[in-house]
């Protein structure tokens, strides 16, 4: 019997935002939940994140924004994903945003949005239930 492949996730910051504590915690807790996590860290570009997603053959891209840059970078990442045929990957956004921007980001192409105060289980369950594993 073939073993089910572990869910593979990229967690990344984008642009200059240095608030990386949340992203690191999420990366650690997803690992504990049995996923394989590639933590890209800070100063990433949309192109770099998508390239890493291809190289690492991930199922999920998770990006953390805490500096009000979410409406600038979300469409850029989605566009880059489409350009590379990664539309089937799950794109999850985390960080600090006003509730008004959640639906905006979803319209832009984010699959789900998690803010501060979210419990780890809600994120883990969301990924497990929605990941579109092709393997």
């Amino acid at each position, binding site marked *: 019997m073939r073993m089910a492949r572990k869910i593979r996730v990229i967690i990344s910051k984008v*642009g200059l935002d240095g608030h990386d504590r949340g992203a690191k915690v999420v990366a650690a807790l997803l690992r504990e939940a049995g996923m394989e996590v590639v933590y890209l860290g800070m100063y990433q570009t949309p192109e770099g994140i998508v390239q890493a997603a291809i190289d690492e053959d991930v199922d999920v891209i998770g990006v953390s924004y805490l500096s009000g840059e979410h409406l600038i970078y979300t469409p850029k990442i989605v566009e880059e994903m489409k350009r590379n045929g990664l539309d089937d990957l799950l794109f999850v956004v985390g960080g600090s945003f006003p509730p008004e921007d959640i639906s905006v980001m979803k319209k832009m192409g984010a699959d789900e949005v998690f803010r501060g105060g979210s419990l780890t289980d809600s994120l883990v369950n969301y990924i497990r239930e929605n990941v579109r594993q092709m393997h």
Partner: protein
Amino acid sequence: MLMGKKPDKREIVSYEEANWEDYLKAYYDKPQSPRTWSGFEVKEIYTPEDRANEDYEQDIGDAGKFPFTRGIHSDMFRGRYWTRREVVGIGSPADTHKRAAFCFEQGGTGLNTIADITYEMGLDPDHPWAQNEVGLTGVNISSIRDMEKLVGDIPLDRVSWSLITASTAAAATMAQYVAIAQHKGYDIGILRGSIQNDPIHFRYCGFRPACPLDLSIKLGSDVMEFCTRNMPRWYYTTVNMYDLREQGITAPQEVAFGFGIAMCYIEELLRRGLRIDEFAPRFTFYVSCHIDFFEEIAKIRAARRMWARLMRDKYGAKDPRSMQFRFAVHTAGCSLIPQQPLNNLVRISFEALAAVLGGVQSLHCCSYDEPMCLPSERGHLQALRTQQIVAYETGVTHVADPLGGSYYVESLTDKVEEEALKIMKQVEEIGGMEEAIRTEWLDGQFEREAIKRQKEIDNGDKLVVGANIFTSEPDTSTPLGVQRIPKQSARQQIQGVRRLKKSRDVRKLSDAINHLRDDATEGRNTIPAMIEATKAFATTAELLGTVRQAYGYSYDPLNVIESPFN
């Protein structure tokens, strides 16, 4: 059901479905664990027995007297309320000036401006990486022109201005502030205020690649030395324990790590030949006030006592002002959540009250909307009103250290001190704070604690209303409106710096830059040359890039652009 109202079917169904069994259980609820936020197990009651070994004069003392456990002034708030100083920083210098003026108009009493990410990294707004993020997290400043707009009509000789900036950028900020003050004809010897200038702490806010440690400490110490000699009323380092706490660490860790970092600067200044009493009175701290009310008060009291003893016993300070732990409080941003956001107003009130009962010198209350966006005008106003209600209505300001002598608070103060000293000893055994940083021991501590905090919320060990208890359907809008950064502000900043770079006197500028490069290369204090270069319209990135190059680093922290002066 209301009188005279016809019962409708839906209402009756909902009553049938109501889960009264569950509702009524709450009547018997009680605190689930007798532990403080930082994990100290506390007793049911504290009595005189817990204080049997206390020596009041030695360990506590009146407010205004060594070891200052009860406050640094004998009359505390009867002499003057704390400074009500809300952090402001949005978009362009003009946007920020406007909001700062609004805060004054509404009764704020101190200025507190924070720079944006691009500035804090030492990038001009026309840098390819900066363009998307100009002004998003604070005010964008690239030249003396921007400083001029930020200051506007503010009388610099009469206000107290706190400049929040980062890492290597602090040297540029100080130079730009001095340059504008001199340009406007002020004697810098009378300027009052503070600059964050805590080059180490920013490594832990995720700015590592932009600030090599040796250069950060060198420039930070340049600021301290320059101010010691030229700006006697200026507080030239604010050791930012607050940002450390925001990483998820405990109250005693906040004090221990903060003091460890302060000691790095003290030792560098002593190496430069300054005397402890010459500079220690100008050290200030930025402290968090988290949600555990008594623990935070105990932490502040413990920090005061520890600082007094550290200065006297380890560094041989003689001047009592060197032994006084002066601090501002930032209520804990990380205690706020975006769910049920108006609850944040209540959290902030408790945290502000703890700060005041702890004897704070200057206070920033978070805005309730901080887990969602930068403070909106109404968010700022509410934060300020919170401070004003504590000051003018509650009556807690009449008496110095009103909780002093409480069996519990005194015992908890001892407990926090004991634990913080234990951690400081551990750091000493590693080889001191610089070594703890170099070996990433400190990184490991932050990592471990942050994960622990999230797990505590995940498994319900720590309860947060709206997150893991008393949750409700998510809000769909921000109650007092969302603060957006005007798009044209970023555009103006980018165009402004481009225009500036084309319109300067090139010879004057390159002379000033050469002077700065020489001073940096030869290890002299860089601030005078930075002031001169700022007056010749050098930009933030040019000041810092020139110094970086002199120290053998790339001109551009992100290594994307070349120096225009090569």
